[in-house]
């Protein structure tokens, strides 16, 4: 479904992503794990069109998208919930969600998906008319995921959904991802919390300073000695 080939991305002279390749198949949850500065966020931003690669190719559903403008990438069925949630703080919850469906023309479908998001996150329905900036981090994360769902994506990219959340809230977000997975949503998940991400991923890639150093099924990576040492805090 998504195929990234030898992707290289630079900020000025600093190369953040140094030639990585990976694939995401329909219905899978694939995760990119790694420490800060490994190039995970840069990779997602390049896939969604916010950044342009120096070299390499990005293919989505058989079409090359690495020179497609960001606002068109989303219409192809690729939604990106960015790092730090980035909800629109002075717009209401409902306006935030409706903006997620900005590119869609099917009003009935949008209304249905809005209800679906409200069913998934009841707190959002209760507070639909409140400005999103007044929300807690966890609630903002729910809104950000819900907003990304509103485009009815074929592939959902989540960047650090657990960042800055309480353990309880983190569990809630992770169980939501599991729920989305069981509904058949294809997900590309970027996480610093390798334990949580690998436990629910079908397949994982470990990034280190812009390169993929390890790849395997989530289950295998979780028990991999090198991964345990480097990312799961064991010695």
């Amino acid at each position, binding site marked *: 479904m998504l195929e990234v080939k030898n992707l290289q991305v630079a900020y000025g002279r600093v190369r953040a992503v140094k030639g990585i390749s990976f694939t995401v198949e329909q219905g899978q949850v694939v995760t990119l794990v790694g420490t800060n500065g490994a190039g995970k966020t840069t990779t997602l931003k390049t896939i*969604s*069109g*916010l950044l342009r690669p120096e070299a390499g190719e990005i293919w989505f559903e058989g079409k090359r998208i690495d020179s497609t*403008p*960001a*606002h*068109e990438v*989303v*219409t192809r069925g690729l*939604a*990106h919930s*960015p790092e*730090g949630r*980035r*909800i*629109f*703080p*002075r*717009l209401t919850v409902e*306006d935030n969600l*409706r*903006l*997620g469906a*900005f*590119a869609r023309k099917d009003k009935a479908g949008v209304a249905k998906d809005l209800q679906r998001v409200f069913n998934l996150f009841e707190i959002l329905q209760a507070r639909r008319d409140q400005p*999103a*900036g007044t929300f807690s981090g966890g609630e*903002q994360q729910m809104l950000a995921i819900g*907003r990304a769902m509103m*485009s009815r994506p074929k592939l959902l990219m989540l960047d650090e959904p657990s960042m800055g959340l309480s353990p309880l809230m983190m569990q809630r977000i992770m169980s939501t991802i599991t729920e989305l997975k069981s509904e058949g949503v294809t997900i590309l998940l970027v996480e610093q919390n390798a334990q949580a991400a690998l436990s629910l991923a079908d397949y994982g890639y470990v990034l280190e300073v812009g390169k993929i150093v390890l790849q395997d099924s989530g289950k295998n990576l979780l028990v991999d000695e090198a991964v345990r040492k480097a990312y799961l805090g064991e010695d």
Partner: protein
Amino acid sequence: MEFLQQLVNGLSLGALYALIAVGYTVVYGIVQLINFAHGEIFMIGGFGALAVWLLVPGESLSIWMLPIMLIGGMLAAVGVALLTERVAYRPLRNAPRLAPLITAIGVSIFLQEFVRLFFGRIPGFPDSKRAIPFPQIEYVTGEAFNIGGVTIQRAALFTLVALAICAGFLYVFVNKTRLGRAMQATSQDPDTARLMGINVDKIIMVAFALGAALAAVAGLAHGLRYTNIDFKMGFLAGLKAFTAAVLGGIGNINGAVVGGLVLGVVESMATFIPGQFGGSAWKDVWAFVLLILVLVFRPQGLLGARVVDRA
């Protein structure tokens, strides 16, 4: 009574500032650019309205000319605003802030000189190197109204009504339409707006066009009120309107309207200051003193800035 008179004068002057100030604020809210050429867009709005009037044969002063002139002014102002955005500002979108600012000053001088040198060359058009009499349309100019001793010029009333209509239209556009919400989203977080499928280039054009359309209304109102227009009328008016936008909180549309009205009233009230620092000669001084005070004690403006922030 004198107080009421000055209040009315101030509000109508402020309405003119407010109509122009909205353009500064919407553009700033989206691209963080102080478009110093916006005063010239207001001037071009006035000249566009005049040009259409000159092109329609018969030199009619009928009220029916008013909407025709308004459309002419808007087309000229919006056209020039979009052209400057495309040619001068867009190539500098990712340049350091100083570059587009200096460009804006250049665009401002260019537009003034262009109108000064070019407008009068068109066959049948008057010399544009000096002030040109503006057609005094019936009903909206002429004998002033007198309500309980307070004199209200017809053109002043026209300006206030125009502001009220424009403000209402803006409110509905920004808060109730899909495009308006996309504009708010872009102003709050342009990158994330792109992820929603919003074409940010298009939103920026909408912001420029919107500001220019309102400036054109102001250009027409200015011509009716001051009975003539000239190529440099955008300079001081633009500066005052920019002050009004900062006063209200730049980036905040309601703030631009409030800031414009407050600035107009403060200028008018300067006549009450006794002694050598009072009178209309000092009105500009007091207007900018107000700006300095606001910047020192409430830098975000009266209603608070709505610049991009991240929660």
